[in-house]
Structure formats: C-alpha cells, structure tokens
C-alpha cells in the first residue's frame, strides 16, 4: 500500500496509484481543506505543497508522489504561512472562501521564494488561482502586506 507523508505524518493509502492526490486527501484522509474546482488544473483550488513547492493536487497522481513531503492548508505553518494568514484576516480578503485554501498555498509558495514580489511577480504566481467572488484586489494587497510584515 502506498505511503504518504502528509503534514508531517506518515499515512498508508488504500487507493489506485492513478488516483489524483486531490481525491486521496479529500476522500481517503478526510482532509477537505484542499478543494475541488475543476479537475484540469485551470483553477488552482487544489493547490498544495510538495516539498514546499505549490502544485495542483488534481494533476498529481498518488503513485508519483513518492517520498515528497505533502503540506496542505490544514498543516502549513512557519513564519511565511503565519504572515500570509494574518494578512488575509487583517484585510478581510475572503468572501465565499472556497478558493482561498489554494490562493493561500500559492501565496505562501511565492513569498517563501521571493521576499519582495512585484505586482508582475504576483500576477505570475497567482494567475492560476481563480476567484469567482473577485477578491483579487485584496489578495494582492494581502501579499504585499505579508511581505512588509516579514521584512
């Protein structure tokens, strides 16, 4: 049975190696913080970290994960994560909130590698995350706010 490390814990998964990690998380581990929005990597709602890098869980097969460390919204932590979540709350970014797990995981990935992202950097890192409620202006402001608080 494949083994995964999710948020620091080793888990045994009883599923087909072709099952996307999105559904392993949601339906085998009941870790539903990672969301399903499109299944074809167009919306970014399923964004998680593999060894700290943002990836779309809907396109990551269980059998391809290997020993990579999986981090989901439920387990992400550290200076950058704390700053991002604090900025999101300070600016009241969320509306329906469904896309926000993915937005936050992408934003943490951006700031972990780029301490002072420009607006163009933000476009590049965040364009894959759709928000139908249109919270983009606040997401952008929250990323700048988080960067300021980390400086």
């Amino acid at each position, binding site marked *: 049975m494949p083994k995964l490390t999710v948020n620091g814990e080793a888990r045994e998964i009883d*599923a*087909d190696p072709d*099952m*996307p990690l999105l*559904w392993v998380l*949601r*339906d*085998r581990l*009941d870790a*539903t*913080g*990672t*969301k*399903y*929005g*499109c*299944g*074809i990597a*167009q*919306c970014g*709602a399923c964004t998680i970290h593999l060894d700290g890098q943002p990836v779309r869980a809907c396109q990551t097969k269980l059998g391809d994960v290997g020993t990579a460390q999986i981090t*989901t*919204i*439920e387990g992400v932590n550290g200076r950058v994560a704390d700053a991002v*979540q604090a900025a*999101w*709350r300070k600016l*009241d*970014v*969320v*509306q*329906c*909130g*469904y*896309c*926000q*797990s993915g937005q*936050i995981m992408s934003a943490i990935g951006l700031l972990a590698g780029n301490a002072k992202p420009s607006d163009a950097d*933000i*476009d590049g890192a*965040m*364009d894959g*995350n*759709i*928000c*139908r*409620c*249109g*919270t*983009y*202006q*606040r*997401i*952008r402001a929250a990323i700048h706010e988080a960067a300021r608080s980390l400086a």
Partner: protein
Amino acid sequence: MLNARRPNPLSARPSRRGLLAGAGALVVAFRLDPKSARAAAGPNLADVKAQPNAFVRIGADDTVTVVIKHLDMGQGNTTGLATILADELGADWRQVRTEFAPADATLYNNSLMGPIQGTGGSTAVANSWFQLRKAGAAAREMLMAEAAFRWKVPVSEITVADNVVRHGPSGRQARFGELAASAASLPVPSEPRLKDPSEWTLIGQKVPRLDSVAKTNGTAVYSLDIRRPNQVTAVVARAPRFGATVKSFDASAARKVAGVRDVVQVPTGVAVIARDTWSAMKGREALTVAWDDSTAETRSSDAILAEYRERAKGPGLTASERGDPQAALKGAAKVVEAEFTFPYLAHAAMEPLNATIEKAADGGYDVYAGFQFQTVEQATMAAILGVTADRVRLHSNWAGGSFGRRATPTADYLAEAATVFKASGEKAPLHLVWTREDDMAGGYYRPTVLHKVRAGIDGKGAVVGWDHVMVGKSIMIGSPFEAMIVKNGIDSTTVEGASDTPYALPAYRFGVHNGREGVPVLWWRSVGHTHTAHVMEVMIDELAHAANVDPVAYRLSLLAQAPRLSGVLKLAADKAGWNSKPQEPGRGLGVAVHESFGSYVAMVADVTAQDAAIRVNRIVAAVDVGVPVNPDVIRAQVEGAVGFALSAVLRNRITLKDGRVQEHNFDAYEPTRMSEMPKVEVHIVPSQVAPTGIGEPGVPVLGPSIANAVFAATGRRLRSLPLDLSGVKGA
C-alpha cells in the same frame, strides 16, 4: 441560555402539495421591487415581532451566537446580520459567533418573499434590518430587567456595552453570561427601544468579518466537504441535450470499475454510486447511455438568436408605455437605432453543486447543502422521499459561491439528490457530486437576450422618443413561481431595469417577446439588470454623443426626479476625475449609472483599448445603499462584482451547437484572473435610510461603463456582450 425554550421549528404542515401551492397563493411580492423595498424597509415597527429567542443565544461563557436565516454564499451577510443584532444588544464583537438557522417558514422567512425562507434579490439585510434590531434590543432590555431585578435598582439607571451590564451609580456590573439564563425567562418586550444612530458602535464601522479565520485555515466546511460515516458518492450521467431522456443504458463496464457499488436510473439520467468521488467519476466514464432526443432542444444558440431577431420585428407584449414614441421618432432630428445581443452565461461558482442525504434512526432525513431556498427545498425533497416536510432536517453549510444557481423554483439539484438517494435504497448516506463539467453544461443559465432600440433627439439634443423591444426566455413562466411574478404574460425579471427606467423619457414603449427554446434559464447575479442596464446605459451614451453633450451632464438632465441616482453619478464622476480625462491615444473614461434591488450604483471605467485588446485600468464606483451596515463588506461586494462580471463583459459565452453546450470547464469559459483585475475604488454615500442590498447591484453598470469607455478611447461603439474589438463578430 437566552433561548432556554426554543420554539419547535418542526411543526407539521397540512400537505406537501398544499405547501407549494400555499406558498404561491400567499406570496404577494416575491421579487424585490425597489419601491416595495423602500416601503417594506420603512418604519412599520409594530408589524415586526421582537423574537430574541429565535435569533440569539447567549452562553454562560459570554459567547453571543446569532442565528442566521439566510445563506451566506460569500456576500458576507453573516457578518452583516450579526452586526445589526449585536449592536442593538450591546455585545462585544469578539464574543459574536453565527450559526445557520434550520428551515422554518414561520420564524425564518424572508419577509420580502412572503412565507418562504430564502436568500436572493439582495434582500438579506433589507428584510432583516428591523427584525434583528428588535431582536437585539429586546434581548438587551431583558438583560437590563434581570440586572435591575437582582440589584434592586431602576432599570433607567442600567447601561449595556461590550457584553457587560452596568449600574453606574453603584458601580455594580455583570457579564451577559451571568445574567442570560435568568433573563431568558422574562417576558419579551414587544416594543423594545431601538438605538438612535448616534448610539451605534458596530453598524457603519469596520468590524472584522466573522468567517475570515475559518476560511483561511481550511476548517470552513462546505457541503462538498461533508463526510458522513459509511457514505457513498454518486455522480449522474445526464443528457448532453436539454429535454432528452434515457432510452437505454449499459452498466456492465461501469459496475466492473473498482469502487463502484451500483448504477441506477433516475429522472435526470443514470447515477453511478461508488465508494468515493474518483471511483464514481471513473465508473461514469465506463457507462454507456443512449439518449432519446425526440423532446430535446437541438438548435444552436446562433439559431435561437436568429429566431429572436425575427421576432423582434414585431411589437411584443407591452411592458410599459407613455405617449406615442413612433410618432415622436418620425419628427426627431437624429435617430439612433441599435441591436444588442447577450449570450447564455453560466454561474460557475467555485464549488460545483452537491448535496448529502442521510436517513436518521427516527425515520427522518438529514440533508447537508448550501441551501438557498430552504423551505422550498425542504418541501420538494420531502415530497420525493415520501414524508412530511418536518421530517427533512436541513443542515446549512458555507456555500462556495452561487450567484443565483443554488436557488431554483424546483430545487433541481436537491430534488435530483433525493431521487438518487431513494433509488440507492437509502441504506448509506449519499453524497451527490456534480463535476465542473456537469455544473457548467447543466443549464439554468442567464438567458440569451436580444434588444432592439430606436431612440431619437430633437434639434436641441433632448430625447423625444424611445421605442424598445426585447426577446428573452422568461425565468418564471412554467415554474412554480409563475403566478406570483408573471402578469399578463410579462415576467418582470426580464424587463426590470428597462421598462421601469427612471430616465424622464417623454414618449416610450418597452415591448417583450418571451423566448421558447428548451434551455433551462435562471437568475444570474442581478438578473434582468444584467442586460437591461447595459442597453439603457449604452443607448443614453449614444444619445449624449448624438446631442454633442457630455455623457454625465446628459444623464443628469434626465434624472432631475431621481436624486439618489444623480447623487451616485456625480460622486463617481467627481472621484474619477471625469472632467480631466486621459489624453493618451487609446485610453478613455466611460460612465454608467443604474438602480437595482433598491440600491443605486454608478461606475466610471478607465480603459485602454488597442488593437483587439481591452484593458480595464481602474473602476471608480459610487454606491448608495442606505445605512451602510458594514462599509468594508460593501466595498468588498462591489470589488467582487467587478471581478465576477469582468469576464462576462470581455469574453464569456455559453454556446450551443446542435443543442449541445460547447463549454464544459474553465478552459473554454474562463473567469477573470488576477492579472486582469483593475484597481477598484468604492465610495459609499452616507445615509440614514433603511439599508438595501449590495450583493447584486455592483454588476449591472460594469459592462456599460466599459463599453462607453471603449467608445471614448477608440470612437468605436460596441453594443453587444461580450465586447469584441476585433470586428469579427461585429457590434
């Protein structure tokens, strides 16, 4: 606990059919008419019951739980409704929580919808305003009475603030939690004193949203996240064409897919039931279904619009008229004649439709979803499951968007869930999932609409006549709500925003033809205003240009009797620097103003249009929504309306080819992305009028403000949506 004796919400109803028919007979004004909104929101306090027990619970630990009768699909009404009650109560915002109400049309109906519990028409705050103020004030007075009794002091010397009740002269004080249990048994004052606006501490202020924490740490539960013990997951194979039925199906390969438990036919198609979502999807891929298209809609959307164009040559039913516009136009110095077309639009909320149903030990049912029409949905499911409505318990979750899709008069996706659950044998909880493809291709779109307008001005530039015909499918005709909304064959949700225009047109006629195609249609964030506002605001702009008058001045000259509309128009123009327009080639400002759902919104769009690309740089919005309960939430809703509607303005279409929807996912129907989002500034008009809504009113003016800006930037007049500068599709 303040609600020690909660009223039983599960009272039996006479009959299931009676409930639906009764809802139809009793509702006087389901759709929010701006005039009735003002009337309903006016001070008829005697009619509003103070019901603290239905709306607030105070724990011994001091937490204040506000019961929310509406659905929060992102518009922030949980924060708004809690603000209203908490302010009157005198609560400490840090102690305030919310929970969703059960289904109960007596306690929790939307007063602007009659005996229906539901959310829509941007009515949550408007219909709750006095109800929650009274509930909060009554609870405050009960706490004060309890303190006065305990301390043997006059209640007039008691004050309440931040979860604490105080007697100033003696210095005594008590927390809410110490008083609430006893206070709950006191009589409920029927006419509690409402605070003067000068006493408000939360209303009108920035307060932190109550859902921000849970929605940023993965703990907020949406119905797609519901996991009941031993639940199975189902997906349904539905016909590619609307109105088709199952002719036959072959489940043999599907049943062999790992994890698949059963395959059953239901009225909407064939359901594959499996151990989890992935197995259900894989099972459905292996399913073969033959469809009977004999009753299906098989035309293309182009053909439907072509039929509309033909029909628009005739006058249609008269929605409103004044004088003789045709005669007036004969004498006009200049006439502008224009056609506008609008495509089908999908709601495309981030959370696709889904519901979970479970049979309880007592023979009742527990259902989990983002319910938007609770009592209609409850009654519909009960009828299918064969029980009385009180045996179907609704558990409302956060909803990952809706924009109107979750609210159908027939409770379509919940009815389907009930049929699948029934067909499954009801042994295991059933989690019904619509994939993104199901959700996008599944119908219930904003209708496709065609408008034909002839408007004329005299030698001085004044409007003399306006002759306007529109063709679109009615949302209400053929639905359980038809009797309430459709009068003389005219559905007000088709013509709203045009036939009742506030512009002082001396002679006009608005005619409407109802479309007949077999595509299911539905309200889409701001409904009729999504197309009527665009047509009115582009046409007025064209007349201003024909008259050689500034577009803002021209509108103001026709809105002398509409002070709130004039007010937002002037504010937006002022804040946008309307009189110092950009001089760069290819850049321009455009304006639009519109009233919808009792609220007034103006936008100025700053647009750069070059070659075939339209780039929206900035939107300056001015809104008048009466008392702004949560100004920051209001700003967020207007910013959000821009982000939501921008892709509809620039590119989105649901198209049919031979009756089959062509767009199945975000690759073909692409929402607005981060890099396209303009800067949005929102200016709120100070007001003490009872609040009206903001969930929808930000949408209608976006399209026309951008179209008018494109004209200012390029001299090219684009009329139809989505805007296409390439010239291939034409204006």
